[in-house]
């Protein structure tokens, strides 16, 4: 494992997603962070990847179900009887 202590940009790229998800084993994590401290490019890729994920998760991107769609769904399921105003 310690044969190649220097993480390359290539290796970092392969582990980037797992790193962002906190899904990487601690030793690998440490090596990767060492590389990040010294490599501007990889740091930029990491920052912008994180930001990309943040952006798609903003609540703005999550519209609720339109009321008419909900009504048709309940009718299709023969649940008209339970079509009360949506609880909060």
């Amino acid at each position, binding site marked *: 494992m310690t044969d190649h202590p220097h993480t390359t940009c*290539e290796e970092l*790229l*392969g582990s*980037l*997603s*797992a790193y*962002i*998800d906190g*899904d990487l084993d601690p030793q690998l994590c440490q090596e990767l962070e060492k590389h990040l401290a010294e490599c*501007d*490019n990889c*740091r*930029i*890729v990491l*920052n*912008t*990847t*994180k*930001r*990309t*994920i943040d*952006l*798609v*998760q*903003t609540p*703005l*991107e*999550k*519209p*609720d*179900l339109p009321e008419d*769609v*909900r009504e*048709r*769904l*309940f009718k*299709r*399921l023969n*649940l008209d*009887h*339970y*079509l009360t105003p*949506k*609880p909060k």
Partner: protein
Amino acid sequence: MDKTMPNDMSLEALIAGDRAEFARLVDEYSSPIYRLGLRMLGNPQDAEDVLQNTFLNALTHIQNFEGRSSLATWLYRIAVNEALMLIRKKKPEVNLEDVEAEDDTDDLRPTQIVDWSALPEEELLSEEGKKALDAAVAQLPESLRIVFLLRDVEGLSIKETAEALNLTETNVKTRLLRARMVLREQLSAYYSERLPARSEK
């Protein structure tokens, strides 16, 4: 999303065919499933079809629900299958199983190296910015998009995503990395043009 049952819903009642309980299930999950349909199919009519078919299917099969996965994951799996069926019908040329070589990250090498991550939120999520974001997601190949939507947009875990899609966790991780890198490239191309015209570093 990781609990077996949401809130205080009763699985026993659902399996016994309790209509009121099923109506609550519909209200609990119809929004995320509709969103998923919208993102997968790209138009409200198809999204509504996916939504209706998902719950019709769920209503028919709820007695067979064995609780091996969470109810949410079970519903997502039905929804994903409905969405994929509709995509195959509409776009037979789409390849949903295109699993690229697992460890081949060659074509993922970043070409856009500009740090736009500190741009203000108003800039990133302006009307135009949101459109660029939507367009970038829409351009992902289906096989990557579905993984990305479940994991990063809807917030399922890697395990839940794998269960919903009938993929291995490794496969989900590979596709997720790909999806994220492709999106990052696209957004970088877009946002780097919005950076103030000055060059530090």
